[in-house]
């Protein structure tokens, strides 16, 4: 079964709006990562947050982590059409075993 589950499965917003995606996981982790995948392509790393961190920023991205609830959120502010992609959270069951969630498909309408 999946370690991580993203919510919502699909999200459609207007350009300029903020997009929030959530990820829940089942077991203890060392860190949690978010990746983006443009249609039919490889994935690109966005941001990593360690288990002892609660919030992290990178440009228009803001990630939070709540280890007590085993959940994380990814916020994209001031969205652009180019942000249209699938977004995945990745958790580490061990130092080597990296498990993907089911993903959120984001559509940003111009």
């Amino acid at each position, binding site marked *: 079964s*999946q370690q991580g589950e993203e919510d919502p499965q699909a999200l459609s917003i207007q350009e300029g709006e903020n997009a929030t995606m959530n990820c829940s996981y089942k077991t203890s982790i060392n*860190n949690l*990562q978010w*990746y983006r995948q443009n249609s*039919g*392509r*490889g*994935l*690109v*790393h966005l941001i*990593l947050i360690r288990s002892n961190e609660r919030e992290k920023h990178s440009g228009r991205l803001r990630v939070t982590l709540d280890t007590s609830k085993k959940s994380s959120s990814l916020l994209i502010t001031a969205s652009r059409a180019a942000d249209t992609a699938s977004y*995945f959270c*990745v958790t580490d069951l061990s130092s*080597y*075993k*990296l*498990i*993907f*969630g*089911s*993903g959120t*498909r984001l559509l940003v309408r111009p």
Partner: protein
Amino acid sequence: SQTIHQWPATLVQPVGSPLSLECTVEGTSNPNLYWYRQAAGRGLQLLFYSVGIGQISSEVPQNLSASRPQDRQFILSSKKLLLSDSGFYLCAWSRVELFFGEGSRLTVL
């Protein structure tokens, strides 16, 4: 800088035929290597990972196998493909974050 190459990019194979997908990494040594599979519109399923030459961990029992004959080479194989093997296969390497190849799209007919 590090780069990862994966090939072939696309292939169409008949049921029962063999498979070989290859992945090589440049610019780093002793990387952790991964094979993932992605069904259409779905998340990524971890198939195999390797932390060193000859060391392969299998996550999903199936008719696929992986080998790591050299430090920066990772091969995904099958002796006889099934229809259910169709999908998008992604190779990746990591230290902490994953770096992906561009993927191989396999269609089994």
